[in-house]
């Protein structure tokens, strides 16, 4: 039925782009969703503090010169028995300030998470576009590979890739390469959903006449996929990317917790939790608790933001 009215913003010429953006339905929906606002603020605070960690952190936990072993196992907000130093969130066994290690650990976690999602996104979008646009055998091969990979838990896939990569890298580069291998492993275990979503969106867009219009003037498939179809399939990708980011951060933490992720010289939140759990039963709870809470806050708020984004960008639910 064509009679359903679609109220549209009348185009107003003399407004700045920012003002127009602020009036969009998207911003409107955002302003009306407390969950989105809170999780957005939490994400912003965490990301900014990770980015500016060197400015915020009281010490650089990875600089051996700044460490004092005498400060080990200081409880939060209590002066150390030997040195009299006080630490906001306490210290670990080596006297590293937990607050600072969390900030630096979050840097690693976020970097690995974002890089892995970007990698998975590029791979997934490329393969999804190709299989959706060309169809036939190309599609069959790509999508069946994806199906097979989906039958394995992604953490297993990541561990497998991690193991292979570890086997082929020379020992002296292992610690250096660990972060990159981690990104590769998580990214490769995560491309499938991007590929699936992009493929189905591509199938829809491909059949629209603006693609036919580009084909009939002799545009090459590559140009059509990149310039015409890609911009129109991006909004579901954005949603998946956000939710994947939360999952990737957790996957990284899991791998690091299992000891196959970030090395102790570059500890991520997962590594910190692994170190911390060793002290849980000896009474030094803060070494585990604070990294764990940070991880939870980060993953949860990113995930909630992703959920909201999915609802906001899905026209059927509005």
């Amino acid at each position, binding site marked *: 039925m064509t009679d359903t009215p679609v109220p*549209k913003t009348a*185009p107003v010429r003399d407004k700045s782009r920012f003002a127009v953006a602020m009036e969009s339905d998207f911003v409107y929906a955002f302003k009306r969703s407390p969950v989105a606002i809170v999780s957005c603020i939490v994400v912003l605070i965490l990301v900014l503090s990770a980015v500016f960690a060197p400015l915020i952190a009281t010490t650089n936990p990875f600089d051996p010169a700044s460490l004092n072993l005498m400060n080990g196992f200081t409880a939060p907000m209590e002066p150390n028995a030997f040195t009299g130093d006080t630490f906001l969130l306490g210290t670990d066994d080596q006297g590293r300030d937990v607050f600072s290690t969390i900030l630096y650990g979050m840097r690693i976690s976020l970097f690995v998470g974002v890089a892995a999602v970007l990698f998975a996104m590029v791979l997934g979008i490329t393969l999804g576009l190709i299989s959706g646009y060309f169809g036939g055998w190309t599609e069959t091969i790509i999508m069946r590979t994806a199906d097979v990979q989906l039958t394995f838990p992604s953490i297993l896939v990541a561990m497998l890739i991690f193991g292979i990569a570890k086997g082929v890298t020379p020992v002296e580069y292992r610690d250096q390469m660990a972060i990159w291998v981690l990104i590769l492993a998580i990214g490769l275990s995560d491309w499938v959903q991007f590929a699936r979503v992009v493929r189905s969106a591509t199938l829809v867009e491909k059949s629209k006449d*603006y693609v*036919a*219009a580009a084909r*009939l003037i*002799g545009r090459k498939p590559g140009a059509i996929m990149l310039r015409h179809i890609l*911009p*129109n399939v991006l909004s579901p990708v954005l949603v998946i990317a956000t939710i994947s980011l939360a999952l990737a951060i957790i996957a990284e933490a899991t791998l690091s917790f299992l000891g196959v992720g970030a090395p102790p010289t570059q500890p991520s939140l997962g590594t910190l939790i692994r170190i911390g759990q060793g002290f849980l039963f000896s009474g030094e709870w803060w070494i585990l608790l604070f990294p764990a809470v940070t991880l939870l806050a980060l993953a949860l708020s990113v995930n909630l933001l992703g959920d909201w984004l999915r609802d906001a960008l899905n026209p059927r639910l509005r």
Partner: protein
Amino acid sequence: MDLVKVKNLSRSFDVSKPWLNRVIERQPKLFLKAVSEVDFDIAERSTYALVGESGSGKSTIGRMLVGLLTPSDGNVEIEGVDLAHETDAAKVAAVRADIQMIFQDPYASLNPRWRVRDIIVEPVLAQGGDTAGLAERLLEQVGLSAEDAGKFPHEFSGGQRQRICIARALSSEPRLIVCDEPTSALDVSVQAQVLNLMSDLKDSFGLTYLLISHDLTVVQHMADRIGVLYLGRLVEEADPDTLFSDPKHPYTQMLLEAAPRLDAFGREVTPPEGEIPNPIDPPTGCAFHPRCPLAVDRCRTERPELREIGTSRAACHLAE
């Protein structure tokens, strides 16, 4: 001088189930013959219309003309070049630049993420031409304003979008425009605007149109020559006056009779019998025979060839 020569054009689509299902269910491949042995020519600077109901193959013919689909058999020659078989890339590019298309759905035929300016000049950019001020000039020619170039498609109504589509089609200075149901998605008052615009542009640019439509009134108003399609075959071809006053083929007669008329208040007609058969399994002989009031035995077995009757051509054993 004929700009387009369509000879013996056929196209079938593979509509079989996936390979594994066919093996399990022991079924052969299924083909849908969308277009069968269609012949017609389009004179330069004229409007040739193809009319037919759903499944008649009219859109498939249009898409083969512009090169979006390749013929299964037969060929299309435009300016003497057969796009599907020509190997000289320069010739193909030259002919491609001379063909454009206007689509039915003005909402799906403009990329929603592109600005109107970029949409309009794309055909020229694809050939590496100069696009300075082109979009603005074309927008004014189709009755919009130059400032609209910076807007996005969603800011326009259906009729305005169709004007943008026309501007895009004109940008590469084509000689032939295939119009696939250009006004079917538009309201009557807007349809008149678009049809008038198309007529004006035809005169000022020296265009040739292939107009594809199911709407007999539109076709009658616009066309210089009309081809009637039924189940993928041309059943009649004539100029509008002859076709509407003296239709030769029983199918054309049925169409004319069934079309709603503005001056037929409370008209009591016996509506036509039956519906269009499944094109995967068309009737033998003349495909229209199960619905034809005049059908004789010969119609059920022998397919009538398209033959000349006066200035018309019709594919019916009984037509004269």
